[in-house]
């Protein structure tokens, strides 16, 4: 069963692995990226349906990545995005990239899974 394509952009290697394995177990196709550069490449190549995005990236920030994707015509309206961050939510930016979803670290895998299911409800399998 192939539910949907998910790209995880997270520089914390261990978290990235845990998330990828769990989501793969749930039946999603999972791609991973560590830097913003890799993420843009993967979005272009793999056309994911959903983005799980960390804010602190080694070469940039998650917000910057969203801006660069927007410049290429990929917005949070057509690419579902879940921001995961250990810092307080930046409401101004969240409003700017509506309908982006914010998930505070640390979170339960089940919460992430529920958010993904909710976002992808309209994606045909």
């Amino acid at each position, binding site marked *: 069963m192939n539910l949907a394509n998910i790209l995880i952009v997270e520089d914390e290697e261990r978290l990235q692995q845990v998330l990828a*394995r769990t989501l793969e177990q749930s039946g999603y196709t999972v791609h991973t990226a*560590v830097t913003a550069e890799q993420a843009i490449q993967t979005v272009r190549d793999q056309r994911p349906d959903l983005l799980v995005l960390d804010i602190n990236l080694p070469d940039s920030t998650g917000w910057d990545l969203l801006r660069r994707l927007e410049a290429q015509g990929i917005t949070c309206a057509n690419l579902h995005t879940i921001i995961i961050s*250990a810092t307080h939510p930046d409401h101004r930016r969240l409003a700017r990239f509506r309908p982006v979803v914010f998930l505070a670290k640390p979170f339960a895998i089940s919460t992430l899974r529920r958010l993904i299911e909710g976002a992808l409800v309209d994606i045909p399998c």
Partner: protein
Amino acid sequence: MLNRFVTLPFRPAKRPVWYGPAGYLATIGGLTLATAVMHALLSLVTIASTYLVYLVIVVAVSVGWGLKQGILASVLGFLAANFFFTQPVFTFTVAAIQDVIALITFLSLATLSSQLVARLRREARDARQSEQTTATLYALSQTLTGQQSRPGTLEEVAAQLRAALNLTACSIILTEPGDTGTASAVAPTLVGEHPESNTVVRMPLLVGGKRYGLLQLTLPPARRSLTRGEQRMVAAFTTQLQMALERDRLHSSEIEAEVLRRTDALRAALLSAVAHDLRTPLTSIKSAATGLLSTHVEWSKSEQQGFLKAIVQEVDRINRIVGNLLDISLIEAGRMQPHKELHHIEDVITTVTERLSPELHNHPLSIEIEANLPAIPIDDIQIDEVLTNLLENAIKYTPTATPVEVRACRHGDLIRIEVADQGPGIPPEHFSQLFNRFYRVTVDSAGAGQVPRGTGLGLAIVKAIVEAHGGQVGAANAPEEGAVFWFTLPICSVERHEAADGPLLSHIPTR
């Protein structure tokens, strides 16, 4: 402001006791001599010239000694002129009316002259004294306003006041504001000695209505009190001193407030960084644990092992962050003292690299240790931390798959340990502050601004530990690419301490 003090009376300079009588003797002697000479040359002198000669003597005596001697000279001159040179001579009777007028004119002129001269003399002396008083107070206020360092200044001020008032001793005793006693004197300044028998004058120093200290003046043995002029000068001086103390107090409280403000800002930055750093491994732990708990996923044995391993490693990472925080608190409290024992640096390097192998698996690691390095006196737990921090930094700040190298070699009586990476290197502007507490190298990314990473404690801890071991730390960019962090440890610090400084041995307990 200083003009207020200019007219303050000043105690006149001491004159010898024979000064007054000598004046009278000189007056009588001068007049006798002049009279004798003029009498001998009686055929050559007129009555008018005798008046002029006596007048010169009157003025000379007035200039030299003052009013009383001048008046005496006037009266004696008048009598001598009458007795020796006015017809009939050798009597005090005067025959001609013109002579009467001349004699009276002489007396009046002589008295007036001596008064005039005496007044000029007094004014000149007053002017000199005023100038001296002004100079003294000016010097005192210069000393008080010109410097910030209190103990030295107070000593100088006390010395100046002692010299100005011819005191046996002068001391300024400062107490904590509001303190009523002098027991907790914080800066007793004493110039000269306080003999028991001498009279002591005490002036409280009040700052903002609170007692701030005491000005204590010990008078010379013969004196029982200050003159009114001196009292006024001391009062003026006390005011100056109080103003200086007040200014000093405000200045130091301002500095304290600034230090507190900066410390608060640093603490806030540290707290938010620590919170972020703790949440990151917590996120991995929670994800792994909740993943394992998921009921609708079937995990294989090896996947379960992987998750559990991740949890254990992330717990270790949290523990290291907490350890760093504890270290910083020890460093801040000045209690970072190594418990040294002889260890081979190779053992420490092996322990650290093995423990960090999960983090290091993305970075090819090479270890190069010079053969036959001697065992050195170190606190292995602390040096372990130093290496861990340096290696974690190398991992954190360099791209995946770039090699990391650990080197150890002997440099004279030091062992030098280097951690070299092949990352982007250290931006030159960061070098000066790299080892400062809370300082973080920020990653400048296009459009994203500065992204700081980590708590900024690691290198500060490295520096504190290495320096507590008597070594040095440093960082440099490698000529080709990447950064090199190095530190040195003395090989024979135990022996050196024994030879150079006995008490330092107490810092090297055996465990």
